C-alpha cells in the first residue's frame, strides 16, 4: 500500500545513496526527501482534493477503528459514529470537500500553546508529541480545558482540534492508526495517502476554508464560498 511498498531495506539503500526519491503514484508526483533514519520521520495523511468526493467513508472507518467495542471478550471495530472521527470532511457550496486531519507539524504550535507544565519525567504537556507514533496526543487528566491548543491550531494551521462540548477538552487527534491508517486504506476514491511531512507542500497546514476557497476559484471560478463559519 502506497509508500509502504518500500521496504525498510529499500529505504536505507536509497537514503544511503543520498538519494531523493521521486514517487510517481496515484496522488501525483511527489519528491520525498527522506528524513534522517536515526531520527524518527514524521508522516501524515495527505489529501488529493481532486479525487475526494466528500463521501465521508474516512470519518466512519477512523471512528470505528479508534473506538473499538468489546463484545463477548472480543475486541471489535466500533460502529463508526463520525462525531468521534479524527479526520473531518468539511463541505462547501459550491461543491468542494476538504477532509481535514492533523498535519503533524514539526513545530507543533498546538503543543507550544498548551500552558500546562511539562511532566518532569516524560516532558509531556497535556498535549504532546508521542515518542512512539510521532503523532500529537493528549493527556486529558492533566488538561485544564483552556482550549489554547485548538485556538493555536485553528489560527496557525488546520484547525483540526475539536473540543468536546461537554468537557471543553480536545477530542483525540490522528494517531495514524498505529501505522496502518484506516482512512487511507478505505477511501473508496484513493484520495488519501500516507506520506512524509513536507511543510513546503501546497496547502500544507492550511484551514479547510482557505483550501476550499482556492479550490473553488480553480474549479468553478468563484470566490464566494457558502456554508462557511
Amino acid at each position, binding site marked *: 500500500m502506497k509508500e509502504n511498498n518500500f521496504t525498510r531495506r529499500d529505504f536505507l539503500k536509497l537514503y544511503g545513496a543520498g538519494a531523493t526519491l521521486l514517487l510517481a503514484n496515484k496522488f501525483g508526483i511527489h519528491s520525498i526527501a527522506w528524513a534522517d533514519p536515526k531520527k524518527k520521520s514524521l508522516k501524515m495523511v495527505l489529501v488529493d482534493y*481532486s479525487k475526494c*468526493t*466528500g*463521501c*465521508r*467513508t474516512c470519518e*466512519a*472507518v477512523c471512528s*470505528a477503528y479508534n473506538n473499538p*467495542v468489546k*463484545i463477548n471478550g*472480543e475486541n*471489535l*471495530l466500533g*460502529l*463508526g*459514529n*463520525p*462525531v468521534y472521527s479524527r479526520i473531518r470532511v*468539511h*463541505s462547501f*457550496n*459550491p*461543491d*468542494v*470537500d476538504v477532509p481535514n486531519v492533523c498535519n503533524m507539524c514539526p513545530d507543533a504550535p498546538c503543543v507550544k500553546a498548551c500552558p500546562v507544565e511539562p511532566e518532569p519525567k516524560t516532558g509531556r504537556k497535556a498535549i504532546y508529541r508521542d515518542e512512539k507514533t510521532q503523532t500529537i496526543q493528549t493527556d486529558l487528566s492533566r488538561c485544564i480545558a483552556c482550549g489554547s491548543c485548538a485556538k493555536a491550531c485553528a489560527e496557525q494551521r488546520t484547525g483540526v482540534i475539536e473540543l468536546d462540548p461537554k468537557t471543553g477538552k480536545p477530542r483525540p487527534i490522528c494517531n495514524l492508526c498505529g501505522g496502518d491508517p484506516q482512512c487511507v486504506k*478505505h477511501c*473508496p*476514491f484513493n484520495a488519501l495517502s500516507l506520506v512524509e511531512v513536507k511543510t513546503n507542500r501546497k496547502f500544507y497546514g492550511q484551514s479547510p476554508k482557505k483550501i476550499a476557497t482556492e479550490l473553488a476559484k480553480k*474549479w*468553478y*471560478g*468563484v470566490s464566494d464560498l*457558502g*456554508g*462557511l*463559519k
Partner: protein
Amino acid sequence: MSSVKGYFGKLLYIDLSSGKIEKRTIPEEDLTKFIGGRGLGAKILWDNLKKPGIDPLSPENPIIFTTGPFSGFPVPSASRTCVVTKSPLTSPVRSTYPHASTITYSNIGGFFGPELRFAGYDGIVITGKANSLCYIVIDDERVEIRDAKKFKGMRTDAFDKKILEELKDRRYKTVYIGPAGENLVRYACIIHTSARAAGRGGVGCVMGSKNLKAIAVKGSSQPNVANHKKFLTALEKARLTLQNSPSTKYWRNYGTAGYIVKSSDQGTETVRNFREGTFPEAYKIGAEAARRDVWVRDIACLYCPLACKKSGRTKGKYGGIVHDGPEYETGVMLGTNLLISDMAGLLKIIYNVDDLGIDAISVGAVIGYLMEAYEKGMINKKFLDGIDLKWGSVDATLKIIDKIAYRDGVGELASKGVKALSQKIGQGSEKFAIHVKGTELAAHNIQGNPPRALCYATANRGGCHLNGDNAQAQNFRAMIDSTGVCLFPAMDNSYEEPIISMLSAITGIEYDRAQFLKAGERVFNLEKLFNYREGFRREDDWLPDRFFEDAFTIGPKKGAVLDRAKFRDMLNQYYKERGWDTETTKPSESKIKELGLAKII
C-alpha cells in the same frame, strides 16, 4: 432505545399550529413490519389520516421524514431520507372526495437522514401550520421552532449558504423549500445541499402549506445493532462488492447522465413531449460532452462509493452557472423533451429549477405539454403572457419556469400540473398531457417499452419511473426505499445479498430474499390500500392516449406504439399476481391477511 435493534424507536412529532414538540415511541410492530423509510412513512401516514379525502394542503396532512435501519451506520450508500405525505398533485378519474389524492414518497440522497439518526430520531412527523414562515432546528435532544420571516422568498442556493451562517455551525444538515414551495406550486420539491431534491409528488408544496421553510439537524449518537460481529462481516462484504463492481466504475464516470445518449440510441428516451424515443442531438448534452465541457468534480452522498453526482461550471452564452448536472432525469426532461441541446442553456434551466425549488421532472413535462399545445395552435402567445414558447427555446423555457414558480399569469394554471392544464385547455390535448394519476411521467419513454409502461401505470405515487417494471421489482424497490440505502447500487444484483445480510445483522431479524420481498410487498400494499380508500380504481392505472396512438417516427424503435388490448392483458396478469381484484384493483382479503395488514386497516 428501542427494543427492536437498529433503531432508536423514536419519532419527533412537531405540531406547527400549537408549537408542541413531542418525542413519541414507535410501536415495535411498526418497525418490524414496515422497516423504515418509505414503509414506516406509509404506516405513519395511515395512522395520522384516519379518513379519506383530507385536503393535502390542510394542517391535518402530516409531512413525514423517515430514515431506515441503515441510516447512520457506515453502510455504503445508506444516504437516503424518505419524505412521505398525501400528495397535493395527484387525483383520481372520479371519486366521492373532492380532495382525493394518492400517497407520495419522495426520496432524497445526501446527508440529512443519517444526521437525523445521529440526533436520535428515526423520523420526524410535522403537522399543523405555523402562523408565519418558520424553520425547525434539531440539535440532539434540543428542538426549536424558529422564525424564518427574513428568509421569505429566498431561493434555495442562497438559502443553503445563509442558513449555515445563521446557525454558525457547518455540521448542520439542512432541507428547505424555495419560492415554488412557499407559493404552493403543486409540484414544488424539497432541496438539500442546493442541488439534491426530494422531487416528486409535491412534498415541497406540503411543506410550504405549513409555513415551514427548512429543517436543520445535527446530532452525535447512533443506535445499537443486534449482531455486531455479523454486521461487521456483512459490511466488509458490502464494501468489497461495490468496490469491485463494474457498475460502480460506470456510475463514477458517467453518473446517470451516461444514459442520456444510450437511451436515445435505444429509443427509450423522453423526447418532444413523449412523442419520440430518440433525439439525434442527445450527444450534445450527454455525459461525454459534460465531462469535457462542464464537470470538474464527482460528488458522493454519505458513505457512497458511486459518486454519481457531477458538478461543474458552464461557459458560453448562458455560461457562468456553477451547479450539478445534467443528470439523466434533469437532462432529458428539461433537455431532450423540450428539444433543447444547448448544454449551457440546459444547465441554466436546471439551476433555476433547483434554485426555485420545482420538481424538474414535472416541470419538464408541463413545459413539453405547453410547447406542443402552442405548436398545435390550441393556445396562443397571449395565453402564454407573450412568451414565444417554441420547441428548443432556452429563453422561453426560463421565462415560463419563473412564471410557474411565482404562479404568475399562465404560471397559475401551469403550477397545478399537466392534468389541470389539459382539463382547462381541452381540445383533445388530454391525449398528450402526460401523467398517470396526475403525476407527470419521467425521462423514460414507453411506446417501445411495455414493462416500463406498467411501471408508470401502477406506481402508487402516480407516473413514477422508479417504481419497478413488475410486481417483484416493485416489492424489492419498496423495501430498498425502506432501508435507507440508495437504489442505484442496489440495481447491481451483487449488492442484494450484502444488503439483506446487513439488514438481518442490524435488526436481528433473519431475512432471506423471500422475506425481504414479502416485507416490500407489505409496504406496497399498504400504499395501495391508502390510494384505494381515496377512491383510486383500475381506470386510474391507465396511460394517456399518446402512447397507444403516436408511434415513434424516428430511431431504432421507429413504429413502436403500445397496444391497448395487450396492455390491458398485462395489467390483468399483474393484478392477478398481486392478488388484487382485476375489476377494481382492490387487494383481496386473503392477500391483506397474508401480509399481516388486516389489523391495521
